[in-house]
């Protein structure tokens, strides 16, 4: 009988309703709640442009649920532009890379390699290229650099990351061909 009572028609007849209001709601509708409800929230900053809008990253059990503007941020006061609003898809879309891909010289296809192998190989390549091309001095002037191993990028990276990159590449390895979007 409970099922029958739950039927909107019943509610309609006995409640003199026209079937367009809450009486016609399904159990699911009655239980609706926002997808962010009950999730954990981490404060973040939009990864796209330099406006630096505050974001709230909602996640549950290690999975992202939603990313929205942080209403407390004095920069954006909860709002976001279309890019910021698409941040969830940015992190969750299926084209995200999840493995290290490697292409050997002259071959036609990617292969999946382990991260540690790739790191060892990259370290080796850096080491060799730098050794081959290191210039100690030019015309008696101290140079101490290699310009043949280059770096590009940084404006999407964190300050801490750029700091370590510059420290390793320039202060450690003596690489000078270092550039990022600020140049262009």
């Amino acid at each position, binding site marked *: 009988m409970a099922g029958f009572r739950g039927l909107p028609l019943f509610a309609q007849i006995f409640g003199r309703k026209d079937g*367009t209001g809450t009486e016609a*709601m399904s159990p699911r*509708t009655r239980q609706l709640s926002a997808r962010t409800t009950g999730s954990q929230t981490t404060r973040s900053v939009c990864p796209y442009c330099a406006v630096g809008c505050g974001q709230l990253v909602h996640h549950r059990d290690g999975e992202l649920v*939603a990313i929205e503007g942080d209403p407390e941020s004095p920069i954006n006061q909860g709002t976001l532009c279309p890019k910021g609003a698409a941040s969830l898809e940015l992190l969750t879309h299926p084209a995200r890379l999840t493995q290290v891909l490697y292409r050997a010289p002259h071959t036609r296809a990617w292969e999946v390699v382990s991260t540690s192998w790739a790191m060892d190989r990259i370290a080796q390549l850096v080491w060799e290229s730098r050794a081959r091309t290191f210039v100690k001095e030019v015309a008696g002037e101290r140079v101490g650099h290699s310009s043949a191993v280059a770096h590009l990028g940084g404006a999407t990276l964190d300050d801490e990351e750029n700091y370590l990159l510059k420290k390793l590449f320039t202060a450690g390895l003596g690489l000078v061909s270092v550039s990022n979007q600020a140049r262009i």
Partner: protein
Amino acid sequence: MAIGDGLASNNQRRHLYVEQQVTVGFFTDPTLCIGCKACEVACKEHNALPHDGFVFTAMSYDNTGALGASSYRHVKFVEETALAPDAPPGFLFLSDVCKHCERAGCLEACPTGAIVRTEVGGVFVQDDICNGCGYCVVSCPFGVIDRRQGPVPGAGGAHKCTFCYDRQKDGLVPACAKTCPTESIQFGPLSELRERAEARRQTLLDRGIAGVSVYDPSSVGGIHALFLTVGDGARFGLPSSPEVPTTHLRAAWSSALLTSLFAIVASALAFWGAGP
């Protein structure tokens, strides 16, 4: 309320409108809109909507084209070619959305009760009920609701703006209004918005902007998503006098009943008269 009120603004603060059964709405103001489409994206992200095709329409910067089963917000780009060669061109943006009509054609038409009126006055399609009969589609005088074509989640059912009923139940502002960077979309109690819309109209008239009006057609008993229009509303694709389809019921049923009567009588007469 002004842009920059932040947490104090209706667009950001949590609310109890559902519990308190306050009728809420939108007021969308093209004179504040920057055509960024954040509202479209935020809506799609929140509702996990599929894309609507990657089609270049050449309709200014609008490649969404229309509201539909997978686009609940649609920013319209109205470009006016310069009338005088050196006058600045007009370029107006208006974020269109379901009107959540006071007398909603879709709601009245729905045979399953899938469409309901919520506590806050929104018109809500219950996806778990809708059987995809499509009657709401031809019953919306604004061309809003549509049946989603597969193969995508929610295919076969009719969809449109939910007024973020799920969010509102938890005291959250609709995703589109919350994200709008310039508060071109304002969310709040409908009565307040009506006043604000009128005040805005007056302000703009005072600033010398001609042809400003509030779009709130009485022919459907008023709408819950008010718009400001500049110049001819037709440029924004807003019907001048939308009709609630059920206003035609009287005439149509009268005709149906008379026809029925005619058929029954005629057939009786035919057999009776033709009898021996």
